[in-house]
């Protein structure tokens, strides 16, 4: 890397214009492509006002989203804290789409705009395009069109069936949002256009073929009983592909009471949920990647004399508050800060590649001293998620730096126990525990549909397989079950079992 001082910085002072933005964008792009080898979607950077940012922020960050009261709730909440000056707004929002849309606030100063562009338009953008989870689970090409379509669809339903009716379904569907992804089979590969067309066709068909007479057909006649009894339960399970962990999808497909448009609403919520599924699992990596990229690019800009010392100071100030990691006994501690952890790990990887210590050679024989840190990082960004990334790359060095330690908390014990600290004996244990805490399987409870007899009483039976005897938050659990009851139309029961299958609790909503 030649250090050739530019004759003139890209900008001085804090004011920005579109010309300056353009100039700076090009300088950033050059470094991103040539030095880091990033591979991004084309960028579309939108300049918006603070109020618009507030708007976007409270609709789960999406520019197009169907209307729902819960977004209004988040809006009034954020509006209040923003107005009172409690919280600064996010500097940027970036959307996993092609082209990659990012929002910059007009109030940002030019140094911050530079930071934001490097962070979102290159860091996040590269991650979205290359990470395997995003490639597998999201459809960057079609997401905006699909959301546009859903927005219109929801509005149309509201008009046709009433706001309350739509709200009832959406509320219930939102309650199941965390259980709307089929994790193991690969997601259905339908482009958004096909999906829309299919849904529409399906709906029209069902509406056309709806025959009111069916309602009057007597149900559950006794003569069927011996049949039903004889029916092999396992046959039934096979037919319905039970157990099923994608609760929302199962209900969408099999609920005895939902109308076509209601099923379609469920499908929409399922789509949104799936779209965000990779983001949940890559907070550390995604933010780490973006932070590492902006840190590298801004420093390079400074080295080349393209930004002034003043601008660099402003950027560093903002950077260091983003990657601040409070210690466990300090106010404001809320677990690991994903920015700090991700950025720390990626910097550490860079160091290991360039300047390894003997310890690193032992822990990371493949990459220690290889020199080509860009490639190692690109590989990590593409092929890992938080859990596996930590399991693979958290180094003793960083564990010492952050002075990590693990604590076990057993409800039956009056004490917490320190089980590992940042020493030779503890490294692996700390790393493993930290990785586990990012595993979606341990963060979210495992709840599956285990049985339903569609020809019998139609009771929907759910099973919660407890991990480490951790129960569900009870009030919320019962409320969610009520929502499920609405969607299913018949009794819903939930049984909690331990890993070995022994029953802990059972509850039923009828």
């Amino acid at each position, binding site marked *: 890397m030649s250090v050739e001082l530019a004759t003139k910085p890209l900008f001085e002072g804090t004011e920005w214009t579109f010309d300056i933005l353009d100039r700076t964008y090009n300088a950033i792009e050059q470094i991103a492509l040539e030095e880091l080898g990033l591979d991004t979607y084309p960028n579309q950077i939108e300049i*918006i006002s603070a109020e618009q940012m507030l708007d976007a922020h409270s609709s789960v960050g999406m520019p197009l989203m169907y209307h729902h009261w819960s977004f209004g709730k988040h809006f009034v909440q954020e509006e209040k804290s923003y*107005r009172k000056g409690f919280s600064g707004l996010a500097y940027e929002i970036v959307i996993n789409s092609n082209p990659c849309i990012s929002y910059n606030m007009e109030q940002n100063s030019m140094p911050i705009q530079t930071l934001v562009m490097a962070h979102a338009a290159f860091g996040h953008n590269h991650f979205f395009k290359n990470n395997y989870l995003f490639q597998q689970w999201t459809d960057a090409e079609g997401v905006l069109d699909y959301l546009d379509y859903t927005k219109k669809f929801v509005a149309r339903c509201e008009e046709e069936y009433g706001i309350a009716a739509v709200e009832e379904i959406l509320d219930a569907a939102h309650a199941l949002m965390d259980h709307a992804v089929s994790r193991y089979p690969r997601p259905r590969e339908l482009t958004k256009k096909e999906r829309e067309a299919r849904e529409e066709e399906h709906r029209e068909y069902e509406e056309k073929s709806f025959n009111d007479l069916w309602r009057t057909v007597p149900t559950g006649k006794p003569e069927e009983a011996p049949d039903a009894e004889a029916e092999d339960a396992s046959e039934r399970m096979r037919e319905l592909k039970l157990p099923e962990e994608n609760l929302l999808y199962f209900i969408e497909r099999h609920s005895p009471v939902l109308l076509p448009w209601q099923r379609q609403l469920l499908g929409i919520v399922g789509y949104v949920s799936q779209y965000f599924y990779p983001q949940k699992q890559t907070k550390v990596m995604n933010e780490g990647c973006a932070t590492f990229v902006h840190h590298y690019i801004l420093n390079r800009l400074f080295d080349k004399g393209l930004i002034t010392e003043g601008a660099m100071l402003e950027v560093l100030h903002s950077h260091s508050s983003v990657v601040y990691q409070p210690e466990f006994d300090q106010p404001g501690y809320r677990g690991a800060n994903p920015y700090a952890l991700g950025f720390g790990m990626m910097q550490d990887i860079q160091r290991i590649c360039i300047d390894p210590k003997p310890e690193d050679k032992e822990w990371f024989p493949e990459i220690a001293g290889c020199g080509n840190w860009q490639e190692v990082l690109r590989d990590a960004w593409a092929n890992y998620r938080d859990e596996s990334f930590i399991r693979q790359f958290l180094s003793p060095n960083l564990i010492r730096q952050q002075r990590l330690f693990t604590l076990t908390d057993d409800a039956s014990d009056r004490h917490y126990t320190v089980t590992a600290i940042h020493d030779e004996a503890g490294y692996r244990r700390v790393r493993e525990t930290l990785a586990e805490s990012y595993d979606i399987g341990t963060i979210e409870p495992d709840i599956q549909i285990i049985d339903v007899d569609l020809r019998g009483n139609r009771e929907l039976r759910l099973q919660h397989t407890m991990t480490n005897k951790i129960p569900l938050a009870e009030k919320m659990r019962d409320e969610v079950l009520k929502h499920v009851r609405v969607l299913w139309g018949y009794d819903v029961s939930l049984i909690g079992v331990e890993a070995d299958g022994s029953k802990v609790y059972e509850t039923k909503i009828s």
Partner: protein
Amino acid sequence: MRHFVDRRLNPKDKNLGNRQKFMRRAREQIKKVVDDSIKGRSITNVDEGETISIPTKGINEPRFQNSRQGGFRKRVFSGNKDFNTGDKIEKPEQGGGGDGGKKASDAGEGEDEFTFELSREEFLDIYFEDLELPDLVKKDLREIKSFSYQRAGFSLTGTPNQISVRRTIRNSFGRRIALQRPSSVDIDDLEVEINDIELRGPQSDHDLVRLDLLKQKWHELFVSRRGIPYLDPVDIRYKRLEKRPRPNTKAVMFCLMDVSGSMGEREKELAKRFFILLHLFLKRRYEKTDIVFIRHTHEASEVDEETFFYSRESGGTVVSTALTEMLKVQKDRYPADSWNIYAAQASDGDNFPDDGDKCINMLGKEIMPLCQYFAYVEIVDERELDMFQTTSVGAELWQSYRAVKENWPNFEMKHIARPGDIYPVFRELFTKQPAEA
């Protein structure tokens, strides 16, 4: 390729729909909080937005979530000071987690209050809800300032319908004089003389020279007249209209209330709403509004708002004492020639039997001539309301006041049992266009 899109001019209120949906959702809780809040507010600042907290019931978004308590869990923390492997740490007494204790309660099970900001409009809307105000009145009350257009001099620009003919002609006249535009009379005179000479035929050299001169003069005048138009664009003046706040006048509102033992909390609550509505109206209409609180039992006194609504007195009920007190205050501080006087009286209708005639007398002779509007509400039990449907039935005071109502159109009286009953008392007031505007 351009990478930037300027969206700053796009519409802002993308979330308005969501916000309204949310408000509708939480309506019941918000309503309750607003009502409670109004109880605690002074009449004069009812119409302000505020931060409210509502219980999360009905607006939480439940999910299947792991409980914060119970089971066995391992966690990683940063910033170890002096812990060693195997150390035992006493669990804090209450609160789950082990987050260091501090944040634990806030992660509980959604029992917290949800706090947010209500704007003035939203606040009033909710407040008006059960007052059953007509939409027009609601709109009227919500508007903060109303303006009327008033003439304010002249301007050089404007629309044709605002031309001030007088001023325009005056300007044109002045200009014509200054530029010495020949008047048509001068030209006419010349023409007459020329005609004269031409008719009788030029008799002499003198006549010929004279005719020549006249013609030359006529031509001069004619040309200069054509050069100096009668009406030039520079003369035109337009009436200038200025936005002015509604009449800059003052109003005083007398709140009279019976505070004897028979007025319970419900009655006072209704009375307060009654006063608030009148005050909102006055505040809209007048630049300055004063409120005088007069409470009475068998004797009356002027008190502050706090005492007015919240302290209790015991004793009989003599309404005329309040009227006397009102007159006294009015004479002392609010001369009728510079104040608009409004009065609102709330009572449960009791009065000392002999006092009725005295009241009629005072109202008829002294008070009503001073007042813009006198509104009386008799607060009755909800169950009794049917009984009072016909105006002829009512308690002591009602009977006396009926006589007043017959003589004075600006006197209004009504039985109320619910907030929805209040508005009709003011219907007259709100439908009347302000005469002084």
